């Protein structure tokens, strides 16, 4: 089956390349997805009728559509209307659209759980509504949204593997190529599985630390 030679000379280099690609995908998609999610959530809660409607539609569409279809539309579908995206870019756009809609939902829930009287008080002091939202509501809402958004970040790390389906060779894709060439599916994917488990565990730990650092006394108290 496999021996150390196989592992070192064939598997390891390919997996390393795939791993780096996975890291690139994650490092681009997570921050952008989060930022867009925040913007959409603010639009959904505080925007005028048009903005709110658009945000709601955005969330419904991108949450209800499987990520894979999104990726296919971006990579295989767009060329037919003249837009050519590289596998990497298509993957990142797909991940961003999908994760931002989930983030938006979590953040929306968090915003609405912040005691509404605080906005009144901020306005009574002379703050504009925008200032009140940025300085009073968001700091609290973002902290409350950390558990949900952390969840979504972990999901993103896992569904980064779907980039392979649009020919972006990340960790899973690299593994499949090696495995199908040498017929060593079980071994290869056990290794890949172990790698993902490590990444996910590490990320979970980091996010837990973040959650603890960000808490202030009394933040679990809701309306």
């Amino acid at each position, binding site marked *: 089956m496999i021996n150390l030679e196989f592992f070192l000379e064939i598997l390891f280099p390919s997996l390393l390349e795939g791993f780096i690609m996975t890291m690139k995908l994650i490092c681009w998609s997570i921050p952008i997805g989060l930022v867009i999610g925040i913007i959409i959530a603010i639009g959904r809660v505080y925007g005028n009728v048009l903005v709110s409607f658009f945000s709601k539609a955005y969330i419904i569409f991108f949450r209800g559509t499987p990520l894979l279809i999104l990726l296919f539309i971006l990579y295989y579908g767009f060329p037919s209307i003249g837009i050519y995206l590289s596998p990497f870019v298509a993957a990142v756009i797909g991940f961003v659209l999908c994760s931002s809609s989930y983030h938006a939902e979590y953040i929306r829930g968090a915003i609405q759980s912040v005691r509404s009287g605080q906005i009144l008080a901020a306005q009574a002091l002379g703050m504009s509504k925008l200032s009140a939202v940025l300085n*009073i509501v968001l700091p609290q809402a973002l902290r409350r949204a950390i558990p949900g958004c952390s969840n979504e970040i972990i999901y993103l790390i896992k569904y980064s593997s779907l980039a392979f389906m649009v020919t972006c060779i990340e960790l899973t894709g690299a593994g499949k190529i090696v495995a199908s060439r040498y017929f060593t599916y079980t071994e290869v994917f056990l290794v890949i599985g172990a790698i993902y488990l490590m990444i996910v565990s590490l990320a979970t730990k980091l996010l837990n630390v973040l959650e603890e650092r960000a808490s202030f*006394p*009394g933040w679990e108290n809701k309306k």
Partner: protein
Amino acid sequence: MKGPEGMKQKKELILQIKDIHKSFGGKEVLRGISFDVYKGETKVIIGPSGMGKSTLLRCINQLTFPDQGTIWLRDQEVTHHNLREINLFRQKIGMVFQDFNLFDHLDAVRNVEIALIKVKGMGKKEARKKAMHELKKVGLGKQASLYPAQLSGGQKQRVSIARALAMDPEVMLFDEPTSALDPELIGEVLGVMQKLAREGMTMVVITHEMGFARSVADEIIFLEKGKLLESGPPEILFYQPKYERTRRFLFKLTELYGDLNGKK
């Protein structure tokens, strides 16, 4: 509507409420309210619940817009302005809410200083100094770095008073400041408010605390069914009210809250 004008002739007019009307969902809660507030005066508004008292206060700092009528701060009209100008007016009008509405994610001193920094553009050091000064004035200097969740109701309300005072307002509005407090905590907040009145702050207070009203108010306004039914200094309104309804309301209040001396 007579105040003790004979004695204090050169009084400045701080607030003018002129013919305020407001309806919610077809129901008219304010039906033509008018009164004046002079500098250093404490006006106390009493009346049955749900009759628009809070709404009136919120019209004064434009958190709610009246359907009709105008509000004047000194010689400037507060109503009918764009949002940016309204924000400027709000800096001169302080408001204390029944539910405190402290900013949960900031400790006490940062609650007081945040508007100084974000609205008035003060530097951080200056704002911190002023905030600590205001907190000490309400007796909470030691609690500066505690968060709202760690404070008692009375302490929370005192922080919110400090927060409003830090903006150096011309007039302070109090919307039932002690109604959400446990009985033993009411005293500490009323004490702060009495001190404020003694120091000459212009105040408009909605409250059921009759003992406080009697000792501090320059004029009491009775609001019923959206109309200003009666008003006058405490000695007259409490003991010789003009209307039967006023007397009945005061009687009910004293049953619940103790007699006019604040005793039960």
